[in-house]
């Protein structure tokens, strides 16, 4: 860790930024530490770093810790009981996903905020392709899929009809997901040395 006065940092900012990639640089003013220069090697670190140093979040965490010490906190089952109660009390229109709107289908919705082109099954966190490809993989009829996945059979049939008309949207989503996973370094195929 390096320590340098603010005047020195100002004069050689680029060099200190480079040095901060190795270890934090403490900035001093009149001999007292006033700030720290921290290098970012991964963009995902920014969010964690900002959260870790957020005064608002620290205040919330300190308040929660104090509350836990004085009240003993909320047991896991009690927490979920309260979430259930709040959900049950909310009006139906607030229980839907934000941003979803109806297509010309009774059982399907689009959720543009999810970043996919294809429709979702209304009331479920499931895309048309997740249903239709699962049926294909397991040789399920509409009736079997409805029973297996606890869906109305009409919803399954509507998803199948949607896929017939919009299979290019569904396939584009799958291709995009594959590109994303590969770009992220996720292994999606068995390696050549697998048994």
């Amino acid at each position, binding site marked *: 860790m390096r320590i340098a006065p603010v005047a020195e940092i100002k004069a050689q900012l680029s060099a200190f930024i480079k040095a901060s990639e190795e270890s934090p640089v403490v900035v001093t003013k009149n001999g007292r530490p006033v700030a720290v220069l921290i290098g970012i090697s991964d963009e995902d670190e920014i969010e964690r770093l900002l959260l870790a140093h957020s005064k608002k979040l620290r205040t919330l965490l300190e308040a929660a810790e104090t509350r836990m010490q004085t009240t003993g906190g909320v047991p896991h089952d009690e927490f979920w009981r309260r979430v259930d109660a709040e959900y049950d009390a909310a009006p139906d229109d607030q229980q839907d996903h934000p941003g979803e709107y109806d297509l010309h289908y009774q059982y399907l919705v689009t959720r543009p905020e999810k970043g996919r082109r294809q429709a979702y099954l209304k009331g479920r966190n499931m*895309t048309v392709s997740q249903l239709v490809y699962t049926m294909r993989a397991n040789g399920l009829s509409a009736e079997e899929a409805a029973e297996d996945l606890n869906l109305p059979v009409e919803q399954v049939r509507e998803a199948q009809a949607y896929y017939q008309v919009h299979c290019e949207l569904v396939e584009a989503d799958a291709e995009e997901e594959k590109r994303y996973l590969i770009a992220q370094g996720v292994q999606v195929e068995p390696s050549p040395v697998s048994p």
Partner: protein
Amino acid sequence: MSAAGHDVETPGDARSWLSGADDRAHFMHAKAAGRTLLTLNARDFKELHDRDPVHAGILAVYQDNDPARDMSYRDIVQAIANLESTGMPIADALWVLNAYRW
């Protein structure tokens, strides 16, 4: 999966409303319950894993457009067994089961 000896909980088993809830709710529930999460949504759970990599593990199945690459329920169970046989840790990791299909 139950027949293969796994202790399985579906979203509907856990909470009546969880089956329609968003990815984060499933992630938080599985994390709190200490359960490995199995999903067909590799993309969004990869993002959740990157943001919070401390959990009981995420197993994802990528659904390819090519029917020859489909993974049936049986293939998924076998891929989990194959992954387990490698000895790789499941917790705090995201695995795409397509890579363990053999």
